[in-house]
Each structure stands twice: as C-alpha cells, then as structure tokens.
C-alpha cells in the first residue's frame, strides 16, 4: 500500500524563486520592445533594413559561437544576448552603410566588445556601441553624417539629409511631426520617436530597463536644449528637435539601459542617465558630429565602475 518513497533532496534556503524572471526573458523582452522600431525601419528603408538586420544578427550569433568555442566555454547563444546586440547594432547603422561594415561591426561588437572581457555580464562597454564606433572611425567616409544621404538609393528617405545634420550644417528644420513618427532619414531604427517610446515604455514597465536611465537622460537633454532654445529664441522648436531627433530616444531606452554596462543602484542609474544626456548635448552642440549618443554612452560606460563606487547605498540602520 505504501508508495515508493519520493526523491527528496536538500539545499540551502530560499527554496522558491520568481518564475517570471530570467536573463533570457530579459533579452526576449528587449527583442519584443524593439519590434516597433524594427517594423518602422523595414517600412522606411525596405531592403536596406533587412540586409543590415540579417547581416548583424547572423554575424553576432556566429561570432558568439566562434569566440565562446575558442575560450572553451559552453555555448551561450540561447540566452539571446548576442541576438539583442545584433538587432541594436543593425538599427544603429545607416541604410547606406556597406555590407562589410555591418559584418565587421558585429564581429568587433561580440569579440572586442564582449567575449574578450569574459562574456555576458563582464563587458565594460556596450558591445553594440563598441562595434559601431569601430566601423564609424574605420570607415569614416561610408559611415559619417554625410554618407547617410545617397541620391542613388532605392528608397526616398535616404535622399534627404538626416534632421540632425540638416540643422547643424545648413540650419534647415525638419517638420517635428515627421521626426516624431519617423518619416526622415537617419540610422535604421532611430527615426521614429514614437516606435522607440512604445518599446521603451514596455521595457520600463517590465522593469527590464531601469526607468532612471532614460528619465535622467531625457530630462537633462530637455533642460540643456531648453536653455539653448530660450537663449536662441527658437520658441520650443529646438527642444523637440533634440528630443525626437537623432538616436536620443533609441539610445535612452535601448542602448543606455544595457544593464551590464550601466550602474547597479537607482541613484547610480540616474547619475549615469544625466551624464549621458549632458554629453549628448555637448557633442551635438560643440563637436564636429551632428549626433553624440554613441560616444556619450561609451564615455559613461567607462565611468560606471566609479559611479558604482560613489553610490554604495546607505545600509539600513547606518547613520
């Protein structure tokens, strides 16, 4: 009558864990959140978007497989982190970029951006931005601001200047509505502020992205752009231009929020966001580039360990 004794094993507490939480689930969240931006990229840039997305994702996965094998570690493709890096990298490329730029950027992102530090969780810099910075400097002609425009393309959008470059170089304003919805030229995924907001709010709601980072970043941009707007008498147009233009929202929600390369504590995250916002505005106004999100993120990544050290929280009961 007695059943076979059940297999009981022991382990230290706690014995239960949140089932809705895993690194893989966080990465899938990012992919879900990127769908509006991906859809908009494909709508605007058609086959260019598909080519870069395909190349970046495939190369990132292949590079991850290869480099992890070389380190003699177990294969980590199923955590989707390489796929996320691939999609984010593709969405930060200009439509006109040559195919080899995407391939090289992806290989560098995974190899030099991530695996060389020890793989997922160990990298200091955002891998996608490492890859992009590498090709942007290596192929300045093919990746620079002017290269976004190409009269010979198959898509209308790429015959225009990007809104950031148009304003910087010739003082031409792009209609704010087009910038909000995304009917402009730019890096593949950054054109639509709306798509970035939709995905970004989902990420914050899921707490996969920490809201402190985009909040700090956007608030700082609003303040600095607001001051410049007031001084220049632009009547608010400059604020919206800087908010919806360039990679600001894409960067705020999808690039800066990479947990690995951002600080640990809420206060640290806010400081990190504010720092990126300030650097973005510095680069946009004072550097030769029309845009500065990539360099701003990389610079703040470098400061992250320091921010972590500054923002050790006050332990409960510590006075």
């Amino acid at each position, binding site marked *: 009558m007695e059943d076979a004794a*059940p297999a009981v094993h022991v382990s*230290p507490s706690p014995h239960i864990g949140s089932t809705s*939480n895993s690194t893989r689930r966080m990465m899938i969240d990012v992919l879900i959140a990127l769908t509006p931006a991906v859809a908009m990229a494909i709508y605007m840039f058609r086959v260019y978007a598909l080519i870069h997305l395909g190349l970046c994702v495939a190369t990132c996965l292949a590079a991850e497989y290869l480099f992890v094998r070389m380190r003699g570690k177990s294969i*980590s493709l199923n955590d989707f982190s390489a796929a996320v890096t691939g999609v984010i990298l593709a969405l930060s490329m200009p439509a006109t970029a040559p195919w080899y730029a995407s391939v090289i950027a992806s290989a560098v992102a995974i190899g030099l951006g991530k695996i060389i530090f020890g*793989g997922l969780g160990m990298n200091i810099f955002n891998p996608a931005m490492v890859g992009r910075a590498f090709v942007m400097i290596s192929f300045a002609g093919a990746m620079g601001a002017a290269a976004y425009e190409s009269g010979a393309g198959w898509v209308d959008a790429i015959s225009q200047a990007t809104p950031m470059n148009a304003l910087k170089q010739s003082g031409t304003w792009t209609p704010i509505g087009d910038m909000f919805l995304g009917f402009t030229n730019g890096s593949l995924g950054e054109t639509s502020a709306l798509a970035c907001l939709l995905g970004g709010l989902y990420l914050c709601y899921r707490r996969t992205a920490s809201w402190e980072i985009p909040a700090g970043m956007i608030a700082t941009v609003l303040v600095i752009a607001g001051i410049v707007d007031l001084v220049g008498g632009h009547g608010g147009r400059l604020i919206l231009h800087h908010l919806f233009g360039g990679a600001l929202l894409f960067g705020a929600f999808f690039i800066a929020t990479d947990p*690995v390369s951002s600080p640990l504590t*809420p206060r640290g995250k806010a400081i990190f966001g504010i720092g990126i916002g300030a650097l973005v505005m510095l680069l946009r106004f004072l550097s030769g580039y029309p845009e500065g999100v990539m360099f701003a993120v990389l610079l703040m990544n470098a400061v992250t360990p320091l921010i972590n050290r500054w923002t050790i929280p006050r332990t*409960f*009961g510590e*006075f």
Partner: protein
Amino acid sequence: MELLQSKDLPGKGSFSHGIHPPDNKSLSRDAAIEVVPTPKRVVLPLLQNIGVPSKPTVQPKQQVVAGETIGVGEAFISTNLHSPITGVVEKIGVCTLPNGRHLPAIYIKAEGEQVSGQALYEDVLGGHWPKDCHAIYYPSTISKAIHEAGIVGLGGAAFPTHVKVRPDDTKMIDTLMINGCECEPYLTNDYRVMLEAPGAIIAGALLGARAVSAREIIIGVEDNKPAAIERLKKEAEGTVIKIAVLKTKYPQGSEKQLIKAALGLEVPLGGLPSDVGVAMSNVGTMAAIARGVIREKPLTHRVITVTGRGVRNPKNLLVPIGLSMQDAIDYCGGLTKDAARIIAGGPMMGFAFSNLSMPVTKGTSGITVLTHDDVRKENETSCVRCGRCVDVCPMQLVPTKLAMASRHGNLSLAHQYNIMACFECGCCTYVCPAHIKLVQLIRMGKAMVVASRK
C-alpha cells in the same frame, strides 16, 4: 484598544524594498488547529534555542510526568527543558536537527495516562485568559515564570524570552512590539493562534509588557489577515494594546523591518531593537507566556503548520515538542509522490532536511513540503548587473557585490559593503534573473568573516 491603519502609524506601514512571493497560505489557512495524538516517543534536543545547551536533570529509565523539568539552563542565554508527555527516559543520545547540528538529546517513551485531545487543546490555547494581569503579577514574578517555563521565541529564531524581558539597566524599553506578520509563504500557524486563541495572546502581551515595563503594546499584523485583525481587535477591547495593520510584503516579519514599518524607527546597524527602546516578540510566544505565567505550565507544546503541495492534507497542528517530523507528516496523510523538498519552517528561510526522524523543536514553526514544480532548478548564468537584488534588499545592501566578494574570499570588500547586516531573508536569490545563489554565497561570506575574527 486602538486599530492603527497604515496612515495612523508613526511608521509608513511598510518598509523599503522586499518582495511579493505567492503566499500559498490558502492550503492550510482555514484548517482549524488539530491536536496530534500522544506519540510513542519524543526526542528533546538539549539545545533548541540560540545560546548554550541545557544540562539534563534526568537519568535513563527514570519516570517523568508531563511538564516535568528534564533539563536546566544554567548559562545566561540558555533555557529549561520539560517533558511534554508522561513516560520513561529511554536514553540520552544524539540527534541531528534540520540546521545540521548534532546535539545530545533526551529520548522519552510514552507510558501511562496522557493528557490529549480536547483537554490538551483547552489547557494550551483554550479557556479564559484574564486581562488584569498587571494588577496580579509583579514584573519579577513574570520574568521568573517565563524563565522557569523554558520559553523561547516561537517565530523561528528561538531566542530565550527571559533574556528579552529581563530588566536592562542600560536600555529603556518603552514599547513591546508583537509580531503577527507571518510573512513566510505557506505558514499559517501564527494566523491560527491569532484566530483561535486571541485571549492568550492579549494576556501574554499584557504580561510581557509588564515584565519589561513597556507602556506601549503594539501587535503588527499584515493586511492579508483581516480575520485575525478582527479577532485581536475584539479581544483587546478595554486594554492599552494597539493593533497595527501593515502592508503585506516579505520580509515584513523581520524585526528591523517591522519596527521601521510600525514605529518609523530604524534599529542602528549591528544593534538590537532595545537600542530604539523596543522589545520584540512573536504572537505565539505571547500565548506561551500567558500559559507559563497564568497556568504555570511550561512550554511543552506548540502549533505548527504542515503544508505544501507535497503533503496530502495540509493542516495546522498542536504538537508536543520532540514529536518526529515523520509523525507530523503521517498525521497529515503523508507525502505525495511528487514531494521534492521537505523544509523545517517556510520556503524562504527554512532548512531543508531529508531524515524524517528529526524532532519538532521549540523553534519549528512548520513543515513545508514542496513538489518538483515548486522547487526552482534553473542553472546559474552570469550576473548581468541588472540591480534587481539591490532593488529588493530590505537592508539596502548590494547583494551582487557581497556575493562576488564572498565567492572570491575578498573579506575587505565584503566588509566595506556591510556583509554582516544581511539577515539572509533570501529576497535577492528569489528575484535574480541569472539564478545566482546570492544569499547562499553571502551566508558563506558571513561565516568567513566570523571565522576571521576568531
């Protein structure tokens, strides 16, 4: 009597951070306390509390009656031990507890007539409990009776209660904070005591407050237990006792978090509740104090919850201390086929064990049996520094840093991040998306720090 909703409290009714695990209390919440029949044998370890073991006062083959002293606590932090049954001492042997300690224990075989069933229930929890204790007992009488009765904290830590109620020349106690939060998932033993024996809790609280000369008495209960709040409120009518309704969150029942939530006070790092003028104890302990002082009966029985989907019929039981875990589980219909982990206590802080001959001790609040579906099995992956552990740590620590310091034996880094402030609630491990055993690593680090101080 005053019912304090969270807005009326000096504290905010809650603390920062923490988690909301599924409470699974419905498995046993509505099961009235049942009295387990007198077992054939009880095993009473000589150390069931924090502190020094008691010294046995009986010999093998000696006859003992229920309630007789069989061990005395001579050291300051030590307690007396009593036989819960009438019978014969078989031997003084060794037993192992779920926390892994091997301890000398007194084995007693039941013989002769026993108090059991309804009579035992009435004796421990039922009947009338006077509410004019302060007029009847001197503080010294109360603390002496508590010492005699071998009472320890029944919430889990099992700290000897007479040490807590002992007058301290260096610290003023103005508030007796009574913990009725029961924030551990699954467990409902405190809930049932609040529901079935509110009179004993109220009487015990008045006695406890008299012993420490506290003017304020506050019972903290989470707002997921409205029936318990209602019963306590009715019973506390006409007394100075206040009932604080707190927000349901784990670990609300941790003493520092409870004091913060109810009183708005922060116990200093490394300090005790007495540093902010608070004495803290649990509702079950109050009922034991009432019985010990008013009925002059020692702590020989307690209420435990036997629950989880790995047990056929989850129940709340009144058991003799020393009952084997096997007897308790058998009384509840035994284990199911998919039982995977047996825990002394709840799933967040309890100890897993596999040897069912281990006894229920004074500090055992329940037995939770989880199934394969409940137990988490995922493999650990790399920390992605998402900071969720930071967002949930009720002590506002940085668990991932502490775990890393522990893993690499970097004690100075661990010290810099206040590793000893961790009380091992397990929130960090619960939420970690990389399934890193954070609190387990931190526990190891704490042990290394303690060892390095010696």
